């Protein structure tokens, strides 16, 4: 209950609304939007630096910050019930497991795949033809 009351207070005088109704203030919505636009520009700029190996991690970090603020404020997760948050976060946990385990597996076989003997390659199935 206290959390709900608090949420109401932080959003101005909507005291007559049902307790599950937490409108987000227009100011907060606009702030989030301009942060997202700023981060989008930032990710393009950082990409231009040519950080090499770090590029992908910088891009993913910025994307994750954007995703987090969309989740928290646009998707109202900040005011969400704990169970719904656990349900959604658990999906991210399973995605991490899925991709992480696949990467571990493919690393183990990397040599036999990427260093396949050139003379044993099959004939190419797509023949480049300048006329088509």
């Amino acid at each position, binding site marked *: 209950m206290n959390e709900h009351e608090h949420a109401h207070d932080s959003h101005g005088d*909507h005291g007559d*609304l*049902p*307790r*599950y*109704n*937490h*409108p*987000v203030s*227009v100011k907060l*919505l*606009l702030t989030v*939007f301009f942060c*997202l*636009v700023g981060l*989008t*520009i930032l*990710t*393009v700029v950082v*990409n231009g630096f*040519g*950080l*090499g190996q770090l*590029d*992908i991690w910088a*891009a*993913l970090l*910025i*994307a994750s910050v*954007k*995703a987090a603020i*969309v*989740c928290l*404020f*646009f*998707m*109202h997760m900040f005011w969400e*019930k704990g*169970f*719904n948050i656990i*349900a*959604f976060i658990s*999906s*991210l946990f399973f*995605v991490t497991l*899925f*991709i992480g385990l*696949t*990467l571990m597996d*493919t690393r183990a076989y*990397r040599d036999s*795949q*990427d260093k396949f003997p050139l003379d044993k*390659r099959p004939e*190419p*199935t*797509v023949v*480049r033809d*300048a006329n*088509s």
Partner: protein
Amino acid sequence: MSSVDTTAEVHDEHHDDDHHDHGEFIAHHFDTPEQQYDSGKLGIWVFLVTEVLFFSGLFCAYVLLRYHQPEVFVAASEHLDKVLGGINTIVLLFSSLTMAWAVRAAQLGQNRFASRLILITMVCAAVFLGVKAVEYSHKWDLNIYVASHYNYIEGYHPDAPSEGLAGALGVSQSLINLCVLPAILLVGFLVAGVIYRVRESQAMSALYLAMAVMMGGFFLGAVGGQIYQNAAESAAAHGGDHGHDAAAGEHAEEAAVTGPDTTSKYPPPIGMFFSIYYIMTGLHAFHVIGGMVALSWLYYRCTRNHFRPDYYGPVDFVGLYWHLVDLIWIYLFPLLYLIN
């Protein structure tokens, strides 16, 4: 607006004595509006979980392909335009803003304002698809398809179309083909809107006219994207004349990166990147189309003044879906467009 206020007042009077009197939209198997809202909320979150897991299969495929052949991704990314991708990102972020704002309006019972915001969201979705159509058609002109049909030759420029509508407008035939269905829908929605107006069915008329405006957004995106594309191409052509040496140097560097395979009968399988590109962006585009349908339904319900402080679930739930579509694009943009 006045009609909304009266409903809210009437509802307030009954608030304490009988929950079952709450309104026409509480299903008989729920005791209170809150219970109905919470059930719907859990439902949409579980649906979003399945969506995340569904897309994670494609992200996993992407990670595998990139892990084994990073050079393919570097070589392929030069065919993707960061500006068009960036504009589309901003368009989607803006549509998320208007959607979140529409949820707020519905929470406060401002149906008329919510309908305006939902209409803006619908138009943004269509603009996104219009820009996407320009990007796709440009790739198809260059024979950039999925891996099995990828046939791009370095330096290839398609002949300008000379026949029919494409020739008259100076755009590619692929783009015209992609515009056929939206054009039919635009005309169809307009006609339906006018027919319902004549038959004095205001809500249906407003719905169809809003959908016609939405399809107009598609052409706004397509025309804007094509204008940018033409400007970028002519700039590239001029730049090619002046800075030829620099360009040649860059190409030499690229050859060093992609290795000696470029000219052999085993070129790096760049089409592989476009397989995953078309599947990921295509599936995302289908979600945008699904969102457009759901948003149209919300628009209709807003024009009927259905939403009020104790009943705004549908706007909230479609909003959550729409934000998820935005979230997926937030990851797709750097992963597909920003590769060095």
